[in-house]
């Protein structure tokens, strides 16, 4: 009985971790390679979800929505990079935080002007709407499994992109020393725009995949953004592998903590106190994890270049 519940919760944690990875991979590329703190990454997540939901409402097709949302979000990202972020690379992190925080406000208001203040509806595609008994006796939503599959595909794709392609080589090189890469005749400006576009595309993918699960509403990317920063700090800034490990770790700890901490405290506290303590501790769990990891490995679990 408990084993069955544990397996379900483990799967839930894994799925949440994969969702975080989709966000974190883009953010870690931008943060690690371009040295830009982009608070507006959550806004790109929101843009992805809104674009997908809009196309879904017009056509009734989630896949079509996804096909529009991915390039659409990448395009929004590229435009933002060219017009606002380019000037910020040379500035220090505080300026970047201020400017990208401004972008959050800008995107929230713009979204409200275009789509109105009400949440939009986005449903799972028909083919993925059922449940599968992957663990006997515990039907699991097919769409959540699909998210895990998409996450794995993205992880493999990024691994090949970074280690096996010329673009990946340039990305790695400019992470190490962007001046030398520039001096060798590579158009670093264009490269950065491409990286930012890729990051935006991944955020848009995460947003579109999250849309059927969560409320598609203004400000939906902000909660997940904080978790995403925790993930990349734990994993090691700039490291895709680190983002994967960090995301799965945070996803599992967050979900399992939520599921089992109150029950654990009930063993030696009265139920009301146990619920309170459990709920409070589970909100802290991932931050405690972050503190422990940073104390042990100040540069994260798998830093990009040691």
């Amino acid at each position, binding site marked *: 009985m408990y084993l069955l519940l544990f397996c379900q919760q483990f799967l839930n944690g894994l799925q949440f971790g994969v969702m975080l990875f989709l966000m974190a991979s883009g953010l870690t590329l931008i943060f690690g390679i371009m040295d830009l703190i982009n608070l507006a990454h959550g806004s790109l997540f929101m843009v992805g979800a809104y674009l997908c939901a809009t196309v879904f409402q017009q056509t009734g097709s989630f896949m079509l929505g996804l096909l529009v949302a991915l390039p659409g979000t990448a395009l929004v990202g590229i435009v933002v990079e060219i017009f606002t972020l380019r000037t910020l690379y040379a500035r220090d992190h505080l300026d970047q935080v201020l400017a990208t925080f401004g972008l959050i406000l800008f995107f929230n208001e713009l979204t409200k002007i275009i789509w109105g203040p009400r949440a939009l509806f986005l449903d799972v595609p028909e083919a993925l709407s059922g449940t599968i008994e992957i663990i006997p006796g515990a039907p699991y939503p097919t769409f959540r499994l699909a998210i895990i599959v998409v996450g794995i595909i993205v992880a493999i794709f990024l691994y090949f992109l970074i280690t096996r392609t010329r673009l990946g080589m340039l990305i790695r090189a400019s992470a190490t020393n962007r001046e030398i890469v520039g001096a060798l005749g590579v158009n670093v400006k264009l490269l950065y725009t491409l990286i930012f576009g890729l990051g935006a595309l991944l955020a848009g993918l995460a947003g579109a995949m999250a849309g059927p699960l969560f409320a598609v*509403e203004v400000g939906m990317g902000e909660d997940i953004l904080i978790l995403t920063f925790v993930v990349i700090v734990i994993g090691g800034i700039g490291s895709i592998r680190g983002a994967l490990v960090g995301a799965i770790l945070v996803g599992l700890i967050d979900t399992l903590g939520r599921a089992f901490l109150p029950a654990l405290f009930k063993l030696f506290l009265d139920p009301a106190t146990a*619920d309170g303590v459990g709920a409070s501790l589970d909100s802290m769990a991932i931050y405690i994890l972050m503190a422990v990891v940073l104390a042990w490995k100040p540069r994260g679990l798998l830093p990009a270049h040691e």
Partner: protein
Amino acid sequence: MMKRLLILLTATLFLTASWALAGPVKIGMITTLSGGGSALGIAVRDGFKLAIDQEGGKLGGYPVQLMVDDDSRKPDKAKQISDRFIKKDNVDIMTGIIWSNLAITVVPKAVRTGVFYISPNAGPSLLAGKGCHENYFNVAWQNDNLDEAMGQYVKDKNFKKVFLLAPNYPAGKDHLKGFKRFYTGKPIAEVYTKLGQKDYAAQIAAIRSAKPDAVFFFLPGGMGISFIKQYNQAGLTKEIPLFGPAFSFDQTILSAVGNAALGVMNSSQWNKDIDNPANKKFVADFKKAYRRLPSLYASQGYDAARLIASAIKAVGGDMSKKDAFRKALRKADFDSVRGNFKFGPNHHPVQDIYIREVVEEDGVLTNRIVTKAFADHSDAYVGQCKMK
């Protein structure tokens, strides 16, 4: 000489009096227009404005000036706006706050300065009980009311194993307390989640393994949208029925939840199909003005304005007659869109509360009244209110 002075004095008095009469009644509205939860504030504002527009810029036959400002759901910002309304704009009446934590920050201080506050939504237990005030009126409900109705209904329907779910913050605990006040059985589990949580997979798995025969939840705004969608995706909607207060099944939210909400029972003091002339006029005029169905919040904003109108009319637009104005508010001499309405001794509604079902009408999801859970229902805190 004496006579001339007297004439002068009367003239001055008359002048000041007529000057006071000539100015519009100033109403300050603090509500949430941006960020999460803005749909609620916008609905309240639109409902309130509709009542003013119906009279061509007047309420109760006297001109009013409505000032609206956005609190972004932040207590400190709400407090700033309130200070400005009171000190700089000299408002007579304030209204609009959606969230209980903002109301507790702003209202007690505001009403002590002599301003009237009419709450169109938030009804924290503090302001209904120990912290009640002669200048504070709530035209919507006390927070626990809707949950109490649902508790009664779930008990009457003989559900034995109920699973409770709410966010871990004061209002969440209040709402579950309200449910338990009338659902006298012992719930099999009472789970509090993080405020603002989006992913309910862990709780849904816990529900599945606990095998309850009903789930009662209070998750306002986006939290409820996420929960209902995920609950449906897990295939549980058909197995274990959901129950909740109207907030997660309001007109502003249903379109985002989709068919997952179909058939869910929820409790409310208002619905668009309540049969009375005031409600018919409200629904028709709202649809005409804003081209959408009115929500619960819009009905509350509208009733707040209609209540104010009745009291302005009673004092002839003269807001210096505070005692008369208060007396007129207490009488609640207006046709509420929900039908029966009067104030209890703590200035909170005594009203009927209904059980509604989510249905589809002309391709749009909306609610239909199934039964009346309570008639002339008051709140549990009225005894604690010692009003002067």
